[in-house]
């Protein structure tokens, strides 16, 4: 559905995207993870053609690209981008915003009431945006995306300013959208939350996708324990760690158990139990990879 090929963007001397290539299909929720200032928003801007790349191409359904305004309109009929809270019209109501997005993409507002209800916005949606809290604004921005109901959605910082119950609500709605075969890109700092609905998470560093984490199928399992540096050195010096182990961000020791026999696994558990720390077993999650790539 979406294909980026060798996309590069540079601001003066700084390369923000460096020959980045990517393919995405409908029905996928793709998480995008990177620290601030490392290209997430730039990537979204390139996909939406709000920013022309220095080189590379963006194509949709293998036939449409941003060659002309006609083509751009054709693509934008299929694509909506997550609005920034600060860009909302303070003097208009939430319902005005929802109707705008519904009309612009669907030419009808029939589906708006159900979105308002589902996102628990009934109590405030008719009030002016200037009276909204951060969380209310964020829910409105998400509701606008639902009102647009496009096959492809780019959601930058979708969980900003939301409390736990609203994070859960939006996560549920994202899962519902996935079931409707939408292609959704989500950039979020709530890394654990991404694991709940993303099919894969892309880790962006130095303008490139340095890792792609898939959530389909069985990921390689690890024994995970948080240790002090000295404790880690002690284990490293005392025992022979398997080849593919990780000591992430100088605190999380992850020992792969994929190729270990049961006895070895039990032996490692016995070695780690005396540290009296929480031990978990499972694949590496987004947080672990994030720490590995960005905090090491």
């Amino acid at each position, binding site marked *: 559905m979406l294909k980026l090929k060798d996309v590069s*963007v*540079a*601001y003066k001397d700084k390369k*923000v995207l460096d020959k980045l290539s990517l393919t995405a299909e409908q029905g996928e929720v793709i998480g995008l993870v990177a620290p*601030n*200032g*490392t*290209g*997430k*928003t*730039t990537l979204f*801007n390139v996909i*939406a053609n*709000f*920013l*022309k790349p*220095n*080189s590379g191409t963006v194509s949709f359904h293998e036939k449409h690209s*941003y*060659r*002309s*305004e006609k083509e*751009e*309109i*054709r693509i*934008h*009929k299929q*694509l*909506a*981008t*997550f*609005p*920034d809270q600060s*860009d*909302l*019209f303070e*003097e*208009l109501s939430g319902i*005005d*915003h929802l109707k*705008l997005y519904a*009309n*612009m*993409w669907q*030419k009808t507002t029939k589906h708006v009431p159900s979105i308002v209800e589902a996102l628990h916005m009934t109590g405030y949606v008719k009030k002016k945006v200037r009276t909204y809290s951060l969380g209310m604004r964020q829910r409105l921005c998400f509701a*606008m995306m639902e009102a647009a109901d496009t096959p492809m959605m780019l959601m930058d910082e979708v969980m900003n300013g939301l409390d736990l119950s609203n994070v859960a609500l939006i996560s549920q709605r994202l899962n519902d959208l996935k079931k409707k075969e939408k292609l959704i890109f989500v950039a979020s700092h709530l890394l654990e939350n991404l694991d709940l609905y993303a099919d894969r998470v892309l880790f962006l560093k130095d303008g490139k996708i340095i890792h792609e984490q898939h959530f389909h199928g069985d990921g390689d399992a690890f024994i995970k324990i948080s240790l002090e540096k000295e404790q880690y050195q002690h284990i490293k010096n005392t025992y022979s760690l398997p080849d593919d182990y990780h000591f992430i961000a100088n605190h999380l020791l992850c020992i792969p158990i994929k190729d270990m026999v049961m006895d070895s696994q039990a032996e490692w558990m016995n070695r780690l139990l005396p540290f009296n720390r929480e031990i978990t077993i499972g694949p590496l999650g987004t947080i672990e990879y994030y720490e590995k790539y960005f905090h090491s």
Partner: protein
Amino acid sequence: MFWKYFLFETKLMVRNRKNLFLGALLALFFPIFFFYYSDTEVETIESEKRSEQAMIEATFDSFPMSQEETPEGAEIHEIYLEQSSLVNYQLYYLAFVGLDETNEEYIENGLQLNELRLRTHELDNQGIPPQYIIPKEEVLQSNAFLQYALENQIQLEPDPFVATNYLIHAFSILSGLFFLLFMMISGSEILLYEEKHQTVMKGFPLSFMNKIHAKVIIHFLYMMVFLTAGIIVGGYIAAREAGLGNLSYPVMIFMNNDYVAIPALQYYMYILLAIALIVIVLYYTAALFNTIFKSAYATVLLALVIFYIPDLSLMIGWNTVWLHPIKVLDIAGVLSGNIAVQFGNEQIDYGYAMLWLAVFAIMIAGVLKLIQWRSYKVKLQSVEVHSSPTDC
């Protein structure tokens, strides 16, 4: 989709305090100007004739004796004697016949007077001090006015404050720099306003030109509503205070290298139609400047500078007469013939101005389209977008 976008823009426009303030100011201009205008001393027909009488006497006093000895000088002297008599008769007719009905004698005398004045122009006004020469354009205007009044049996209007007269004067004050400034301030953020809400508005599946057309149309309708309201309120107050006047009353306009009289109603239609076209041109101009300079201040300032370039060039003696089409934005000046006189170009009349305004509108819209088209052709460029330095 265009219609839905247009309705949304309407919603924004109605809630835009700056434009509401400007609209109200435009509407209030007409009633406020009436109170100012009605307090000023405006020349009545009688006072005009009395000053003409004094001017003729002064001309006699300063007419050089030596001039009378030349055939031209003698003829001019004779003409001034006749003029003096005709003006005195006009004053007599004003006093004894009045203006309650068509004063044919007054008009016929006026026509003869104008004929004599034109003859003195043919004789190069020899021996007449420049300050006492009535400009040819004024004579021609007066001639056209009197001809029309005679042919249509129009009763001459003694009161300059009646609604029909007042509105004509109000339009002439509004036209030009004042109106341009007003419209440019109102349209100074015509596109930039959307930039402040970029992430909400930018990805719509709607063409750049359609967005601009929608914004220009809504700005246009908004300001025309206030303008119309102002004319109605101003006209109503003037009519209540001084009377409605006569909608068939002749107004002089410059057309086809001549001064012609048209009914006041026709004048209003001409000027309103031209104002509508000027508003459209100015809003497209604002959109173009917004696109290029991304600054509301630059938009207003540049428009003012461009409007004044032809005058400035004339003042410093540069031959930039080709810039005169810019001045068609002062439509009252075009209709009165002032612009044609200022630039020494007899072509500049209402039809010429309307043609240029239409050309400007098409040209500016064309440049906007070209800029948009070019943005898809130019590759390998970085475009600044709305993002904080840490939020790449």
